[in-house]
């Protein structure tokens, strides 16, 4: 998974994205640009469609997202209430509770469905934060020369050598227990990789002739970074985001499992921790222990599959198994 993105950042690698060829740039009429965009999206989808793994991943994601959105309809709004829990403690699966109950007598299936909301939210927001920081730092460090670029890259390197999980645990310990803490802890510790990738891509883009032309025509730093560099690094960023989401979901589960999540909110990692604290492991209550882990693995896998498919579309040399 690693180096796969490296070739993408090689100078001169053709990135199918808007404004990719110089001559058209000169006569950039709005309609023309839109048509080109539409065409490239269609081309992207055509390519993407040919990756079986990517399609599976996408289908899985859509399904899980739908389930998460429909949680209140599927389970009733009171599924998380402890005082109105319908079952006994740690009941094994039955017709009423297909995945049994937790120690408070709540349906594990219902909790799993509600947990999807939290895990997806944390995954998406943390990945967004991570990629946002990484993109800004990467573009700025790639665009400008001189000492502040150096300083930015030094900071990035410095974050890079910190043991990520250790740093995230420390950060989560420092702040109080809430969803935002987890999101920030993940986002703040994982951005440097994105920054390195985006910087390399920025350097590649800026070495192209049309940037020279734009500069000669009087385009300021802001103009070049926003109108020329950003659109060109977006595909890379998109691929990066999907991959970061899967890791963010795993990290969320890890932090929750270590007891650093918000205990008042049901998340998959939190369910695993609850199960462990209740002694489900020695009682052999697999129906409580297995589903959250499988759910985490499936969602992480789905995002990884999508991310790989996108990467391959952008850089067909990689030959991801279809």
């Amino acid at each position, binding site marked *: *998974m*690693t*180096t*796969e*993105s*490296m070739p993408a*950042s*090689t*100078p001169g690698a053709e990135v199918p994205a808007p404004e990719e060829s110089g001559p058209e740039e000169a006569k950039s009429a709005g309609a023309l640009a839109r048509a080109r965009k539409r065409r490239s999206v269609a081309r992207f989808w055509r390519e993407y469609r040919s990756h079986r*793994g990517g399609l599976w991943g996408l289908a899985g994601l859509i399904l899980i997202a739908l389930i998460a959105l429909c949680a209140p309809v599927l389970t009733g709004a009171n599924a998380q209430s402890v005082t109105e829990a319908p079952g006994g403690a740690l009941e094994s699966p039955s017709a009423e509770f297909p995945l049994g109950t937790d120690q408070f007598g709540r349906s594990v299936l219902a909790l799993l469905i509600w947990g999807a909301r939290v895990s997806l939210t944390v995954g998406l927001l943390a990945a967004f934060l991570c990629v946002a920081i990484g993109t800004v730092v990467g573009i700025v460090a790639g665009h400008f020369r001189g000492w502040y670029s150096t300083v930015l890259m*030094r900071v990035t*390197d*410095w974050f*890079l*050598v*910190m*043991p*990520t*999980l*250790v740093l995230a*645990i*420390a950060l989560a*310990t*420092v702040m109080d227990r809430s969803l935002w803490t987890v999101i920030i802890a993940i986002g703040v510790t*994982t951005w440097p*990789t*994105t920054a*390195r*990738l985006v*910087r*390399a891509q920025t*350097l590649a883009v800026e*070495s192209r002739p049309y940037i020279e032309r734009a500069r000669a025509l009087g385009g300021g730093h802001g103009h070049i970074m926003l109108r020329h560099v950003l659109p060109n690094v977006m595909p890379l960023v998109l691929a990066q985001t999907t991959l970061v989401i*899967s*890791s963010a979901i*795993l*990290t969320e*589960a*890890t932090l929750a*499992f*270590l007891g650093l999540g918000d205990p008042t909110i049901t998340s998959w990692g939190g369910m*695993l921790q609850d199960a*462990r604290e209740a002694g489900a*492991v*020695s009682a*052999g209550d697999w129906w409580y*222990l*297995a589903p959250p*882990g499988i759910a*985490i*693995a499936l969602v*992480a*896998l789905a995002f*990884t599959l999508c991310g*790989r498919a996108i990467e391959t579309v952008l850089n067909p*040399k*990689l*030959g991801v*198994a*279809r």
Partner: protein
Amino acid sequence: MTADSTPALVKQADAEGPAPAGSPAVRGPRARNTQAYLKYVAAKIFGAAVSLFAVLVTSFFLFRLIPSDPVKQMTGGRPVSAEQLDSLRRQLGLDQPMWQQFTSYVGDALTGDFGTSFQYHAPVVDKITEALPATLLLTGTAYVLYSALGIWLGTRTAWRNGSKSDRFNTALALTLYSVPSFWLGLLLIIVFAVGVGPIPGMFPTGGLESGNESGFAYVLDVAHHMVLPVITLVAVGYAQTLLVMRSSLLDEMGSDYLTTARAKGLRDDTVRRKHAVPNAMLPTFTLMFVNLGHVVAGQILVETVFSWPGLGGLFYQGLSVPDLPLVQALFFVFATAVILANTLADLLYPLLDPRVGR
């Protein structure tokens, strides 16, 4: 790196990759060109030294942000008087102003003294050297196994790109990769340590040794204890190496020189062994060095789940006090290992690149 690290970390490999493409850094200085190489070495070593110092400073301040009172936590639940608390605080040096604590920390750390652990009343360095072998044994073994397995399977899958075995192996690796390590560990404990149905509980549930063996029996006893945690680490970790190896080999196989070589009538196998694999090893090699750095950081989760007496467990336990001298030293050690491994990779990379100097 593997288990409790997350896929994001994987990305470090390319980001950290020596001389990222397009960067102004020296790209593969020729080994012949000794002067340029020395300059490159000096730059890398200077960079590493700066990073080390930054990490030292971070380690001090990061943990002092934790809203916690070590003295109160240490005496938790026992009858202690206010005077006792004050005297404890004095002994731990917590009554001094922050800047004074900081300067003495940095000063001592530079001479290799990381102070005395709050909770163990013993030099931090001793505590770390006590726990280090256990971590190195567990994660080191896992590291060797998953690297070897990853390279081997990566080569095979790339060679048979698109075949059924390729798809199966890649899918299996990706799936295992998405599994939380602690969860896999718990499941393995249930199935193979406790026993389920017809499967007997054949492995110990945790720890490093039974505590009553010696000689060769002791070695076997430790090996017996290592099986489940090592399986957990390898299962979660090998995917990374596999994927990197596979994709860089695919990359190589598309290169013109291979086509030429094949056109010259060289056998597939020779082409693969003599040309493609060595070249494709480079990114994998980088990844292995990054992973090597993380061997020391241990596996907080796997060590906890399997009651392994290593550094990860020590760190997590220290954090809850917080045992400031211990956690800041461990943090420093973890980051140092990564920095050293990366620097080593940076220094060796130009020497190993087969395209250079040929």
